[in-house]
């Protein structure tokens, strides 16, 4: 790599050619303040916060876009550029509400940090402020355009990474705003509720729909049985909300904290993940023998399901009919468990603690109701539960850990790795192999489908039959993979798709990136994934079908995988949906 000589703030450095000023500066330890720039998204140069002075140029230059060249002299911290940056941030703040203390992101807001760093202590330019209504229509994501700083990250992420294109810039000049098409209510748009916009937004312009206030009265209602289930990805990331390093598993502390909050039973979604594997692996083998369409595509990701119904209705028959682990657990709680503790299902408040915002949408789907009741009453994200724990004064980091309740608390390693991209596939193959061949799969860690590459392919051989699998994470990669499938339906047998980059560990409900990190940071995702793989490695039972509690539930209640009871309770159906968007309402012709 060719090198060039530059100076930054009068000090000489030698850096690689072919990169931007910002990239070179970052590597040298100069973190130039920025807002609209994100390494995973295209470069906009819109916010002008990252401006620097380059000798010989009359105007300031956006360091995120301008390439280094030999002999370039850069200033990032002169009085002039500091004042300019400060003024630019003030202009951005001019249309931002001054309500930090009542805002969701007080203390964890990028804009707050920026304002503080630029040293703004006095406002010079005040004038007209724009006012918008909050959009509360979606069960998952709340949109508040008043807080938007027009960085455009959400638009680029929704289009470039997720390929959903639910958001765009509209209008012009001072009236520019980010909104779905026609400014329709978010719930009516093509939004898949994946919540990545929440992750990437520097302010509280996007936040999850908060259910904590609805939960509290239920928690204090003594006539109700409060049951919580915890997703795998929650334990891998919740520590970050308490200042811990990413990747530190806090499973036992989470259980303990939930009990202290007042939950009567705390179950593990990893248990129902095992159950999902039983059903799904069996379903796959049936299709393999000709009783259904191939390739089979997993359906645990709710954002992915909304995406399929809207954009890929031609592939509905390929989708597994299995419910997600969360909905399966909800169904089991309302039936099997209610009976076990001799309570009526209506007396149970079923709460799911999830890393995911789309699960809030999923919980409201009428197809997932069980005997007239929603399988899950309420979905709380990792952020919401972390806040509840802090708000209750529980010393999360130091409390003595506790274990999940029986009989829905024991899980295998396969159930654990559900949270990361490739995990569902690996878990399914571990069981499918044995169900098909009668033998145990010894190479239990399928490395080909681990990691953060957008589309991963792998294969295993079962009794001489080659099974080709593919894994995609992020809806944009899913879209690419599905195009391959349409061109060549025989290319793969089994496909796993997770709607969020990184899989569920990168979900829209996970803790915000800290001040030393960025949203969607790959290092952070890798560490969270490693936490789950580590848990898997340390378990004695690593295959779903070997989970004794799973075996018991079949014996006592479900019979066998794909039985009539199993179908009634653990399977669902999907249909093509037509929100306002790419697929329009039928134009009536008279």
């Amino acid at each position, binding site marked *: 790599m060719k090198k060039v000589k530059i100076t930054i703030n009068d000090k000489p450095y030698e850096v690689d050619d072919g990169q931007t000023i910002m990239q070179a500066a970052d590597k040298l330890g100069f973190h130039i303040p920025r807002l609209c720039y994100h390494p995973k998204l295209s*470069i*906009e*140069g*819109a*916010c*002008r*916060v990252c*401006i620097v002075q380059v000798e010989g140029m*009359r*105007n*300031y230059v*956006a360091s995120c*876009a*301008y*390439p280094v060249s030999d002999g370039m002299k850069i200033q990032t911290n002169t009085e002039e550029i500091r004042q*300019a940056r400060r*003024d*630019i941030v003030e*202009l*951005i703040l*001019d*249309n931002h509400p001054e309500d930090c203390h009542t805002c969701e992101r007080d203390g964890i807001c990028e804009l707050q940090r920026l304002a503080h760093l630029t040293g703004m202590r006095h406002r*010079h*330019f005040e*004038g*007209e402020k724009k006012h918008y209504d909050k959009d509360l229509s979606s069960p998952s994501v709340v949109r508040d355009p008043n807080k938007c700083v*027009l960085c455009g990250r959400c638009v680029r992420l929704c289009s470039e990474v997720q390929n959903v294109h639910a958001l765009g*810039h509209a*209008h*012009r*000049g*001072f*009236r*520019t705003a980010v909104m779905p098409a026609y400014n329709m209510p978010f719930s009516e748009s093509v939004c898949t509720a994946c919540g990545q916009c929440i992750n990437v937004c520097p302010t509280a312009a996007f936040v999850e729909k908060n259910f904590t206030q609805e939960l509290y009265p239920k928690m204090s209602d003594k006539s109700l049985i409060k049951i919580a289930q915890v997703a795998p990805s929650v334990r891998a990331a919740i520590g970050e909300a308490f200042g811990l390093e990413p990747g530190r598993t806090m499973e036992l502390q989470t259980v303990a904290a939930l009990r202290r909050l007042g939950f009567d039973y705390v179950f593990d979604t990893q248990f129902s993940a095992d159950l999902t594997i039983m059903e799904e692996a069996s379903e796959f083998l049936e299709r393999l023998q000709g009783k259904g369409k191939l390739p089979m595509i997993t359906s645990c990701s709710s954002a992915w399901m909304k995406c399929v119904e809207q954009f890929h209705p031609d592939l509905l028959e390929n989708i597994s009919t299995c419910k997600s682990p969360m909905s399966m657990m909800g169904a089991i709680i309302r039936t099997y468990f209610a009976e076990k503790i001799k309570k009526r299902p209506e007396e149970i408040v079923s709460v799911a603690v999830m890393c995911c915002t789309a699960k809030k949408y999923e919980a409201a789907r009428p197809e997932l109701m069980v005997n007239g009741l929603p399988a899950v009453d309420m979905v709380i994200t990792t952020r919401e539960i972390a806040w509840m724990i802090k708000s209750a004064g529980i010393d999360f980091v130091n409390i003595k850990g506790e274990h999940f309740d029986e009989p829905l608390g024991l899980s295998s390693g396969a159930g654990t790795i559900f949270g990361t991209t490739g995990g569902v596939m690996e878990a399914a193959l571990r069981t499918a192999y044995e169900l098909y061949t009668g033998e145990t799969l010894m190479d239990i860690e399928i490395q080909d489908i681990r990691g953060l590459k957008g589309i991963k392919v792998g294969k295993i051989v079962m009794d001489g039959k080659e099974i080709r699998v593919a894994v995609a994470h992020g809806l944009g990669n899913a879209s690419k993979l599905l195009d391959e499938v349409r061109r060549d339906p025989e290319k793969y047998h089994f496909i796993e798709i997770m709607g969020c980059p990184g899989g569920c560990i990168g979900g829209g409900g996970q803790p915000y990136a800290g001040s030393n990190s960025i949203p969607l940071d790959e290092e952070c995702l890798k560490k969270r994934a490693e936490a789950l793989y580590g848990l898997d490695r340390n378990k004695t039972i690593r295959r779903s079908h070997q989970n004794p509690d799973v075996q018991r539930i079949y014996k006592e209640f479900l019979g066998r995988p794909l039985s009539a009871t199993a179908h009634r309770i653990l399977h669902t159906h999907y249909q093509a949906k037509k929100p306002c968007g790419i697929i329009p309402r039928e134009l009536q012709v008279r």
Partner: protein
Amino acid sequence: MSRKYSITICDGPTCLHKKSKELGAAIEQCLKEHGLTDKVRINLSGCLGMCAKGPIMIINPGYTIYGGVTAGDVAEIIEKHIIKNKPVSRLAIEEDHLYNRFFRVFGDVNFFGKQLRIVLRNCGIIDPESIDDYLSVRGYEALARVLTEMKPSDVIDEVKKAGLRGRGGAGFPTGTKWFLTARETSDEKFVICNADEGDPGAFMDRSTIEGDPHSVIEGMCVGGYAVGAKKGFIYIRAEYPLAIKRLEKAIADAKNEGFLGDKIMGSDFSFDIEIRLGAGAFVCGEETALIHSIEGHRGMPRPRPPYPSVQGVFNKPTLINNVETWANIPVVILDGAEWFKSIGTEKSKGTKVFALAGKIKNTGLIEVPMGITLRSIIYDIGGGIPNNKKFKALQTGGPSGGCLSEEYLDTKIDYDSLAQAGSIMGSGGMIVLDEDTCMVNIAKFFLEFTENESCGKCAPCREGTKRMLEILTRITEGKGEDDDIKKLERLGKLIQKASLCGLGQSAPNPVLSTLKNFRSEYEEHIKEKKCRAKVCSALLGYEISEKCIGCTACKKVCPTGAISGIQKSRHVIDQSKCIRCGACFEACKFNAIKRT
């Protein structure tokens, strides 16, 4: 068929409004009556730039220009001029050193007139809807020469040598731009003509396209050959329907005759042109925004580098030039770089078309060699300020430019000297302002425009221009505060240096240049709440003088009942009730109301 005469009628919008269409019909009728239909040809031309004297009619040979012609004059003109060869002197425009001196010496280049029409060489002479006419004035000969005698690198060298600079406003050396685009290797390259003329008060590009569309097409073909492009786009404002129509016809005709399309004139060079419409966004005149607009997106600019010559439309190397630049190219090729660079100043070669408007006697389109002084333009060509008013400032460069006060009148027109004087060349708008113009108000007017046209992508322009406008509005409403000027300067410099594109970078120019050259007017507005040009209505006081005869007309129209008085005696305005609406001033027929 030999023709005796050709009659050209200007059908630019001003002349059309003055009923130039009726002229055409009247002439046809009269010719028919005299049996001369076959001997006299009637042409229409685009705007000839003599709007104040319209409707304009030119009779050739002889180049007699008639102004203010009505249908009633037609019979006299046909009988005297056409039949008896005696021009009708009462209608002829005969002032010296205006447009006609050059016209009489058709095809030659006139160094001695104050104007020098290179870009507008054919406007008014040929029928813009006739490719035959264009061919008869050496049309497409430059392209033929390029395709048969020159290599692409030869063409670029010639353009470089000529010293032509981009006429869109930035003045970037055209030859260099061509060179940078040519040297890129790519499977596809494109050429673009920027016809999104957005400066209010500017109609140079419009007139060029309406009057001589083939000159632009030919220029683009030469450019395409030089850089290795096979496809060109003309991005034109939707608000120019006649220009669009003329372009469509010209492209179709050029295709028919083999000057566009596959294997042009039998060579290996193929080139096609497509028209793309704008839709009402001034920012699309900025090259990266224009490129995004052609790609079907919002017209938002993006950071450069990469420059369009490397990564332009559809991510391919793209050569983008303004209409006027393209129209110069055939002349550079045919008459040569040596000749071209003999015109103009050392660093700014050739001519520039300006749209002269505002408080000046001769409003219209002029084309002058670079180096002519502003004084010469305003007083020699423009005829000076009407109504004996005093010259106050010249605004050049449209909403991106600055206001030059009297001390700059001897500045020579040239990219660098105008920039040094605190303004810019811009695309050619030139607005003359007199003593009745309030400089604060003018700055506010231009800022209103740029604020409205801001694309909204970057914070300095989107929020900054709004804030500056709010401050300026307050000042014109008499609510100026002490630190307003400081704030305007701080914001202005920030927006200039921190904005993403040229619109933002130049939006503060009118404000900053008026602050520099007319600071006292700002201070009067703020500290004394006074507008010396008597424009800012909130700062005007109204008083009734001794001329008042007590007709009560003002009392009747006053909306707040601030005027009291009995019939036949001098009325009085109660200043505490007066809202300065000016209704009384309009109503008084005796000039008895003074504005202070």
